[in-house]
């Protein structure tokens, strides 16, 4: 079998496995949602007060940017499970026993990721055609002008995300939740790297298109120059905004990109980088060798205590003798009550178990920072970090039973669904209250009841959000991605309304977030019930 055929079969099998899952439909649904958001103006590209006339060039450029910016972000989280799935299904061990090389495997996975994300871009392209045909104020259809930016910007950007997903899955420290958080900042950095200088007169350096992986700099740069030629008073601002808060009031005619050599090189660069990253991933890939994980575990075990290998005594006969001597005390019929506090304590312990000492040291440092800083500084500067630190504790909420296949053990217990859900939520609340407790003490001392209300609402809201996303998605990625992005936009930049932590006076609507928390817990319960055949 030729290499190409092996690669084709790998990608095909992986793709088929994915498209037959509900999550793939959700991914395509997300693409349609993005297209709809563009259609309604919720997602809009604007240059100060201007937007383009709704021709194929403008629509293609907007959807092309949406594809490269948003699909490259969300798509990463959608496809970052290709290697993990092989690990969990144990198909990986079968593959590892074949002559398949590590580089070939990681390349195949990156390609498979690319095909999935490419399908999302294609859906956006199809949606763009529909919008152009039936949109309210759309001008005539020019298919090539419409689709070229979508396919070139979208496909090249998601190629890099596809390869990064494989790289993150193979690098041990980035495989889990840490990687999900790190990617958000990597993505942000890559976007910022490509953003053009604010004024249209300023020239981008010659290498700018090469590092502009989403194409945002190339596209906006050309638009800025064209608009400036039309309106010299245009100041050079540009944004791809969400929410449509300040809709543009003027229009200009955008004729489409100048596909010069630098622009085309900019689209090739992410693909080349993706290829290199996929090959780099092979260096870190453990080829499903369980010994690598065990080696770390074994070192830890050796540190704690030496134990009898496999727990078996040397003499089998002696072992059987112990068996007959073993005794179980019958339990009274009254045992097995609804002891929620004990279960909450167990959930807290389960949540914290396995965290290293340095994790507690940093959490304690942030707590002291909250308690010792002036109240305004503590709220605005330290609290956001105190509440991003336990992110991975919260993201495991509602997902552990799925992740570790303990559902059958846990949910065959009496009243397990509501009890375990409440206990898990309470554990999350305890962690939130404990890690952010320094600020609460300062607020109590300062008698800042409004601030305390916002703080309490956040304590209730954060774990509720984690629980609902965990219960419905079955994994921690959704919370890790959403919370990190929300944390960046809201609490870190103190944006009123989306600042759920209340980092400045009046920036949070405490009652709203508290009510949302209650609602989310109810939705999480419904999710649990939905996922279990019998509850």
């Amino acid at each position: 079998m030729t290499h190409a055929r092996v690669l084709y079969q790998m990608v095909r099998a992986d793709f088929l496995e994915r498209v037959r899952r509900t999550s793939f439909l959700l991914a395509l649904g997300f693409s349609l949602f993005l297209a709809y958001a563009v259609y309604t103006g919720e997602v809009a590209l604007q240059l100060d007060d201007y937007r383009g006339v709704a021709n194929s060039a403008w629509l293609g450029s907007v959807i092309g940017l949406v594809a490269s910016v948003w699909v490259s972000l969300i798509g990463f989280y959608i496809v970052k499970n290709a290697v993990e799935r092989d690990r969990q299904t144990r198909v990986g061990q079968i593959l590892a026993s074949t002559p398949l090389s590590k580089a070939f495997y990681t390349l195949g996975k990156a390609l498979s990721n690319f095909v999935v994300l490419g399908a999302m871009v294609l859906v956006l392209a199809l949606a763009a055609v529909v919008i152009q045909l039936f949109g309210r104020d759309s001008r005539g259809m020019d298919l090539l002008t419409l689709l070229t930016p979508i396919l070139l910007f979208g496909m090249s950007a998601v190629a890099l995300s596809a390869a990064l997903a494989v790289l993150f899955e193979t690098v041990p420290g980035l495989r889990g939740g840490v990687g999900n958080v790190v990617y958000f900042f990597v993505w942000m950095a890559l976007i910022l790297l490509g953003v053009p200088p604010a004024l249209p007169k300023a020239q981008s350096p010659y290498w700018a298109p090469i590092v502009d992986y989403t194409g945002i700099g190339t596209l906006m740069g050309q638009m800025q120059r064209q608009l400036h030629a039309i309106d010299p008073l245009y100041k050079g601002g540009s944004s791809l905004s969400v929410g449509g808060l300040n809709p543009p009031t003027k229009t200009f005619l955008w004729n489409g990109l100048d596909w010069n050599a630098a622009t085309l090189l900019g689209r090739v660069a992410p693909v080349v980088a993706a290829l290199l990253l996929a090959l780099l991933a092979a260096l870190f890939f453990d080829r499903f060798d369980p010994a690598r994980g065990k080696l770390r575990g074994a070192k830890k075990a050796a540190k704690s205590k030496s134990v009898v290998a496999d727990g078996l005594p040397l003499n089998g006969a002696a072992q059987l003798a112990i068996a007959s001597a073993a005794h179980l005390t019958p339990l009274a019929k009254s045992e097995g009550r609804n002891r929620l506090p004990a279960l909450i304590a167990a959930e807290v312990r389960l949540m914290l178990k396995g965290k290293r000492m340095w994790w507690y040291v940093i959490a304690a440092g942030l707590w002291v920072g909250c308690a010792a800083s002036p109240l305004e500084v503590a709220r605005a500067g330290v609290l956001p970090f105190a509440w991003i630190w336990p992110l991975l504790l919260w993201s495991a909420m509602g997902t552990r039973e799925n992740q570790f296949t303990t559902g059958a053990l846990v949910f065959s217990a009496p009243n397990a669904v509501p009890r375990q859900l409440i206990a898990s939520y309470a554990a999350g609340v305890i962690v939130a209250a404990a890690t952010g407790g320094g600020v609460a003490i300062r607020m109590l001392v300062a008698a800042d009841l409004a601030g305390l209300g916002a703080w309490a609402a956040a304590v209730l809201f954060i774990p509720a959000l984690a629980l609902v996303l965990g219960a419905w998605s079955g994994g921690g990625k959704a919370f890790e991605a959403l919370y990190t992005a929300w944390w960046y936009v809201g609490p870190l930049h103190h944006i009123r309304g989306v600042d759920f932590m209340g980092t400045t006076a009046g920036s949070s609507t405490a009652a709203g977030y508290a009510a949302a928390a209650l609602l989310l817990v109810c939705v999480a319960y419904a999710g649990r019930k939905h996922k279990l055949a019998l509850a």
Partner: protein
Amino acid sequence: MQLSIRDVTKKYGRGVVALRNFSLELKPGVLGLLGHNGAGKTTLMSILATITRPSGGAVVWNGVDIACDPDALRRVLGYLPQDFGVYPNLNAVEFLEYLAAVKGLDGATARRRIEELLELVNLTDARKRPLGGFSGGMRQRIGIAQALLNDPELLIVDEPTAGLDPEERVRFRNLLSDLSGERIVILSTHIVSDVEATATDIALIAKGELVAHASPEELVAQVEGRVWEWVVPSAELNAARERYLISSTTRRSDGVHVRVLGEEPPRGAIKALAALEDAYFYCLRQQRQPLAMEAGV
């Protein structure tokens, strides 16, 4: 104490029927549920453990339909699934303490019980070791321990000896026998010797249907006089397989000793004492090809 399985059917998507009108009445003792892989055993176990909802029929525990009130059974249920996981960062004691809390045991009772169980499953020495470093057999023993945490009246164990070495397997069989006094134990397996050693009753399942329900002695009696031991040269084994129903083969210096099931012996065969494995093969073959064999169970 009574568990009634009444006309239980389970259908999955695309028309796959895992269980079809399955009925059984259970009283204290060990029921060995025997069947090939894919016969529907795990689906039945999952329904009895209140994890899966049946498509039709009812499971009634002491007069209560568990679809209406699953907690009536869950309070007294111990369940060891075929596939289960553990939390790798917890040690054995912590994991059992967690599940004891989930099952509603108070702290003192849980601690006492856990110590006894760890001794019972021979994991006392490994009690403080993270479960992530446990071997498959050790994990299985943790699974057995968690199933016994709440002193269950109904103990369901699905392929419990998978991953256990021969000594552990014997140990587990002894344990099941000791436990069976005042509780219902359902042991699902495709390993006949596990059932032979422990079961007071046997249910045979094939293609989601109950083929037979009887005591081991009654099952064996069905094939008494129909089991033959026959020595054939290795080269003729395949031909023998095509002509006769063979329950087992053993290679020896004088050829292959095969156990043939049938009304008439092959030429040169001698009558052999019937065993449970013979009865198992006989019943399942009869279910598959009812016209080819006489008599029934």
